[in-house]
């Protein structure tokens, strides 16, 4: 569930992952941020360099953690499913979950914790409603494998796939306010802002949501 392993996501000319740049732009300057599943610390590093944030991370893999700490980042070894409960309410401005939601055991509880700990949550995930995914299942009849979802069904860390539509529904169910949503196509480019949701759900390969507590 470390994004160390996220394969072939588009990068900017500067070398940063497009989804990470997009997420970092959603964060206010100087904010206090917790990155859940921070991998090798790429987003935390980007956030501290470009937005001057006070960043912390949780990462499951020992290699990822030790690499982060050796880079001077404040990262602890932990699990999104079990360790978010240790954080007090309102400890952060933003809690980020990048390409990890679909690998958690209890995505709903994780999202609820994120919005308890932080005022805002930023979640990015691969969209299982993407046309390539749909076509593979419909015509080829096997579990979809794409650039962004390269695993076989038997060795994938992803156990709770969802579509953009599913995620919006979850947000409604737990009373979360949606502030911003961006869908990226297969080339890492944001889709038209005025496109309808069904269009995003079909052509967005991944999505990034900025949500907050209602009220």
């Amino acid at each position: 569930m470390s994004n160390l392993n996220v394969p072939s996501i588009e990068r900017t000319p500067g070398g940063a992952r497009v989804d990470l740049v997009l997420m970092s732009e959603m964060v206010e300057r100087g904010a206090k941020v917790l990155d859940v599943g921070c991998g090798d610390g790429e987003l935390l590093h980007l956030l501290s360099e470009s937005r001057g944030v006070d960043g912390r991370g949780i990462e499951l893999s020992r290699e990822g953690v030790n690499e982060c700490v050796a880079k001077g980042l404040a990262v602890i070894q932990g699990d999104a499913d079990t360790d978010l409960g240790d954080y007090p309410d309102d400890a952060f401005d933003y809690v980020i979950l990048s390409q990890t939601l679909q690998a958690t055991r209890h995505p709903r509880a994780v999202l609820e914790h994120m919005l308890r700990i932080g005022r805002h949550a930023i979640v990015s995930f691969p969209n299982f409603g993407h046309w390539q995914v749909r076509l593979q299942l419909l015509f080829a009849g096997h579990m979809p494998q794409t650039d962004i979802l390269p695993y076989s069904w038997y060795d994938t860390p992803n156990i709770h796939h969802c579509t953009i539509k599913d995620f919006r529904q979850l947000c409604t169910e737990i009373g979360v306010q949606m502030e911003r949503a961006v869908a990226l196509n297969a080339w890492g480019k944001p889709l038209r802002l005025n496109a309808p949701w069904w269009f995003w759900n079909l052509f967005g390969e991944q999505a990034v949501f900025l949500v907050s507590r209602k009220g």
Partner: protein
Amino acid sequence: MVIVQPLKDGTERGEGTQEADHPTSHVVAFGADRPLRLDSGVDLAPFQIAYQTYGTLNADRSNVILVCHALTGDQHVANVHPVTKKNGWWETLVGPGKPIDTERYFVICPNVVGACMGTTGPASTNPKTGKPWGLEFPVITIRDMVRAQAMLLDHLGIEQLFSVAGGSMGGMQVLQWAASYPQRVFSALPIACATRHSAQNIAFHEVGRQAIMADPEWRGGRYHLEGTNPRRGLAVARMGAHITYLSDAALHRKFGRKFQDRENPTFSFDADFEVESYLRHQGISFVERFDANSYLYLTRAMDYFDLAADSGGVLANAFKATPTRFCVISFTSDWLFPTSESRAIVHALNAASARVSFAEIVTDKGHDAFLLDEPELFAIVRGFLDGAARARGL
């Protein structure tokens, strides 16, 4: 061999006790007007602190790293030890170009109160009687050690520490520093330690203490006066403790069931196995440099350590609103201070919204790994200090 020198009053004292009063280190003496107020309610005065320094203090005194030593360590972090003539105990980590880089930082390591290498302890001479304190020395705590270190820093004119680092009992002092003087600690590196001594660890310590006290040469703690030395008791205490510093896997890798200089068992209680011979050596060499009563006092200080109890039972309160950045490190095969203890520290620090990093290092070397060649430990300490130095503007 213990070098024994006769004293004027006809009693004999080892070289270790010479170091207790006249250490091969810098010494600051605190007079009767500057007592060390102990947790037991006793004022210790006069007293002295022996310490070593490495590197150069910068102009605004902002590059100080305080190194806290473990139970059987001392202030000789990175120089040849005056008694054993061996290298310093943390030369792997502290020195020019090392992770705790003495070309960049000014490192101070004081001998703790209650120890026997120059800071006042039971082997030191009690000025009121002119004789070694022995068991008349007051019982001390980790907080007392830290309070004494704060007095030393006040004396040296050092207001804030860039970092405090230490493993095991040294790590306890690091945590106590962060809890007692949060504004004075910019960053903290508690390694292989806990916020409280577990029942199992208290039990191990009690076995060690009983071994010392069961030695007829201990003489109720008055061995300095009676010209004896509980060598066997202290050696057995060390042998037992040493096992807890290693791991089953490390012992197996190092010794297995190999015989010592022989092909077959001798059918006796000789040290047939290599591991026996090794432990005996550990015990004997320890006695050369350590005072048995000091061992009693320092193990007691660790037993009493319970940071949560000092904060109304809630560990997070010990670190409430702490400005310190922490890097907690544990080792997979450490069964004396297992990773679960470090996780408890991290949980409390998270609950206090502290800036904390936590890394667990895979090794089979047990608790002692913090003293050994562990490249991942070095990389993490270096990276953490680099990050902290950037934040501190060093």
